[in-house]
């Protein structure tokens, strides 16, 4: 037994080994066998498994002065006060005739008590912060739902702030997150399936969908892709995303990342599947289309005129963020006749002292801008602002007066930078910023023609791309007139009577279809 557990603990500690082997060892080496009736055997086994784990507490005590028992838990993952008050206190002053588990279970005033039958179960429970009670002469143990650890308070997600609308955001704890979802969608049709992945991290992954809206095939497909995952650890939902997305080589995100429960709930109501990963405040939504990445929740919280207008502004600046510098380079080096004479003369004057060709100048500035952005993002706030001030001086005034870059170029880079920050999702912004560079090369090589060819190549990729079976540019290409109304404009809520990309055999209507006429009459009468 000792050798067994020795091997086991070595296996568990050696991070170098294939985790699959570790998993196999657990299965093979009879740790899965039932717990022994001898308390000391069980404790010895667990002590070996948890060798060198200083945070594992083996609290030995005696129940009712007769029966020896051990409470095993991880320090910091449990609520010590509750353990003292609700487990240890009743047991120690106990007056039971027989110390069987069922009796003990009845004695302890805790809602969630489960039976632990094998060492594996015990380890699982302990790792999850559920204290395990092992009792003399019992081949089973009990685990209590008294886990509690430090977690962040629910606050507004900084990466997706809105002016209007709910300010709560997901946090690192998956239970809190599912609760947040459940608070938005109170129907029992909101299903949340749970699986665990990660051989070492044993991370919980929740798959949330609304039964009756989401297509069963979609849910099946998500489960089918999740099942075979074998990985040592999952620290963020991106790990999962990369393992299950359709095209792992695409620059474009095929799942939407959000930290906002309202966004997740909105997509649930459109028939999407939401993946929550324990330890990550950002959940993943699938399937999505390109346009989902360019929509902000605020579009729906503002009046629809404003929502539509802002959406168009965002589309425009999305195009600018992709094409800004390349169009500038193309016009400046290929199509000078397009520039009105006075403007051309001004530009020519500003470029007179610049030693670089326009293409190099643009590349230089864009790279500089990206570096500044990255430096600013990684630094503490106090230093970050210093970086941005220095950066602004470096790539702005000083570079111009030193004659290294021209001022129109600085303007173009600045506008492009702002444009790329306008996309409501960070990941599409960074994709576009990356694509900007090959586009600049194409523009410097063939002018407008190069830009157009570049656009065609990007579109070609986007048109072949799918997110869980949904074409990425879907309502536009292939054209689906019915769904266009939420892409080109943000239609009034009362007109959104149908689900987008819903399967044909499901119920399409999301609100009473005669709402429009009804409320119209109502308006008249008042």
């Amino acid at each position, binding site marked *: 037994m000792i050798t067994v557990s020795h091997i086991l603990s070595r296996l568990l500690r050696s991070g170098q080994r294939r985790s699959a082997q570790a998993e196999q060892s657990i299965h093979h080496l009879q740790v899965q066998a039932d717990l022994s009736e001898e308390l000391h055997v069980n404790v010895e086994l667990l002590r070996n498994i948890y060798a060198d784990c200083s945070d594992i507490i083996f609290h030995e005590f005696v129940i009712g002065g007769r029966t020896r028992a051990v409470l095993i838990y991880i320090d910091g993952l449990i609520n010590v006060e509750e353990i003292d008050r609700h487990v240890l206190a009743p047991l120690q002053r106990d007056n039971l005739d027989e110390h069987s588990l069922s009796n003990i279970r009845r004695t302890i005033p805790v809602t969630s008590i489960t039976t632990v039958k094998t060492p594996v179960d015990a380890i699982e429970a302990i790792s999850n912060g559920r204290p395990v009670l092992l009792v003399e002469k019992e081949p089973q143990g009990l685990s209590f739902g008294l886990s509690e650890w430090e977690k962040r308070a629910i606050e507004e997600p900084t990466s997706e702030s809105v002016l209007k609308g709910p300010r709560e955001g997901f946090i690192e704890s998956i239970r809190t997150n599912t609760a947040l979802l459940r608070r938005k969608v109170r129907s029992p049709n909101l299903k949340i399936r749970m699986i665990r992945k990660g051989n070492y991290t044993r991370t919980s992954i929740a798959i949330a969908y609304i039964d009756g809206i989401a297509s069963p095939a979609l849910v099946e497909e998500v489960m089918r892709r999740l099942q075979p995952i074998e990985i040592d650890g999952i620290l963020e939902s991106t790990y999962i995303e990369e393992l299950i997305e359709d095209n792992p080589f695409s620059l474009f995100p095929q799942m939407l990342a959000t930290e906002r429960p309202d966004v997740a709930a909105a997509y649930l109501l459109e028939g999407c599947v939401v993946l929550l990963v324990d330890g990550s405040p950002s959940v993943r939504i699938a399937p999505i289309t390109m346009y989902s990445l360019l929509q902000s929740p605020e579009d729906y919280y503002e009046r629809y005129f404003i929502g539509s207008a802002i959406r168009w502004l965002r589309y425009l600046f999305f195009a600018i963020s992709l094409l800004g510098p390349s169009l500038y380079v193309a016009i400046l080096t290929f199509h000078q006749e*397009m520039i009105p004479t006075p403007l051309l003369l001004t530009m020519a004057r500003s470029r007179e002292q610049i030693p670089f060709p326009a293409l190099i100048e643009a590349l230089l500035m864009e790279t500089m801008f990206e570096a500044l952005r990255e430096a600013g993002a990684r630094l503490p706030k106090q230093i970050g602002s210093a970086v941005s001030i220095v950066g602004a001086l470096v790539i702005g005034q000083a570079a111009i007066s030193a004659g290294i870059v021209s001022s129109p170029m600085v303007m173009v880079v600045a506008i492009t930078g702002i444009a790329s920050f306008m996309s409501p999702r960070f990941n599409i912004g960074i994709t576009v910023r990356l694509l900007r560079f090959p586009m600049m090369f194409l523009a410097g090589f*063939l002018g407008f023609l190069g830009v157009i*060819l570049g656009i065609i190549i990007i*579109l*070609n990729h986007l048109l072949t791309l799918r997110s869980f079976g949904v*074409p990425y*540019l879907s309502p536009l*290409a*292939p054209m689906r007139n019915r769904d266009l109304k939420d892409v080109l404009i943000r239609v009034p809520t009362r007109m959104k009577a149908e689900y987008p990309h819903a399967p044909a055999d499901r119920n399409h209507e999301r609100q009473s279809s005669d709402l429009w006429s009804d409320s119209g009459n109502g308006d008249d009468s008042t």
Partner: protein
Amino acid sequence: MIEKGKISSYQLGKMMYLAIIPTAILTSPGITFQYARQDLWISPLWAFTGVIVVLVILRLHHWFPGQSFTHIWERVAGRTVGRTIGAIYWIFYLYVNGIIVREYGEFIVGAFLLNTPLIVITGSIVLVCAMAVRGGVEIVGRFADLFLPAFIVLFLLILLPIIPDLNIEQMLPVMGQGIMPSITGSFVLQIWFSELMTISYLLPYVHDHDKTGPSIWLTLIAIILTLLISNLFTLLLLGDLTGSYTFPFLILARYINLQDFFTHLESLFMAIWVLCAFVKICVFYYVTVLGAAQSMGLSDYRPIVWPLGFLLTVFSLWVAPNYQELAHAISMSVVFAMLTMFLVLPVLLWFIAWLKTSGSRRSQRSDDARSLRGSSQ
């Protein structure tokens, strides 16, 4: 079937519209003007070929649903004839596409990138087209979905600002020499209308057959209207000079002047041209690849996409040593060749098929026709 993708009828219509319009608005005003003079805007109305071709092809596909043009030949005239005609067709498509690629290249080099080698221009467009064609008919169809609105916007962006510079008197006298000049002028236009025959290769992949007819007729009408408008605008701006410019419609874009700021928008025209030429080359390229795969009996067309792309680039150089010869050929002998391939042969096929089916109808009702269809699958 080689192709697993499906397109909708409207995608087919959009594809054909975009595949016919670009070269037509670019070169047709100049050539038509030679015969029709100030009546050149009437010429697009004489779209006889378009009507005949669409009628014949739709009829054929009604009789043989789900069959491509080559397959119908095989059904009707026997395997050897069908295979031969299939081979001739894809080689002809390769040749026509070579002309298109060449025209595209000549236009870009002649008007925009004066010093860039032609091969770079043609090679790059064939490269991106090959990428799209490998994606199959679905991808090409979606490109058409995306580019049609872009085309319309850009087209209007050229037409609307030029309106103040138009001189309505340039179009007078209407039919001063009678109706004949405009009909003669429409002679060259027939090659563009006859290109509608290409739908015959794409119809098997359309999933909503009930809308095919309306969609194709709508496409034909849209083509006629677009040509009419572009020819009319060109005439109203350039008058007698229409025939003198190589690319008259380009002058329209160059002549735009809005508030002295938006001037010389020919690059806008280049954008239109490249987008549509891309769709056009893709459609013809796809048909070439598909036809070649079918006539060689391959199980997949993708392996031959790149080799045929290379061949296409070579053909674009081979079709003519210089642009003048090409332009002359386009306005004369190539018209006859295209009419033979895109009009005469389909009509012939229709005629043979009609004889066969009507003969069989008398004896066996539609059983024979059904067996004709059934045995091919």
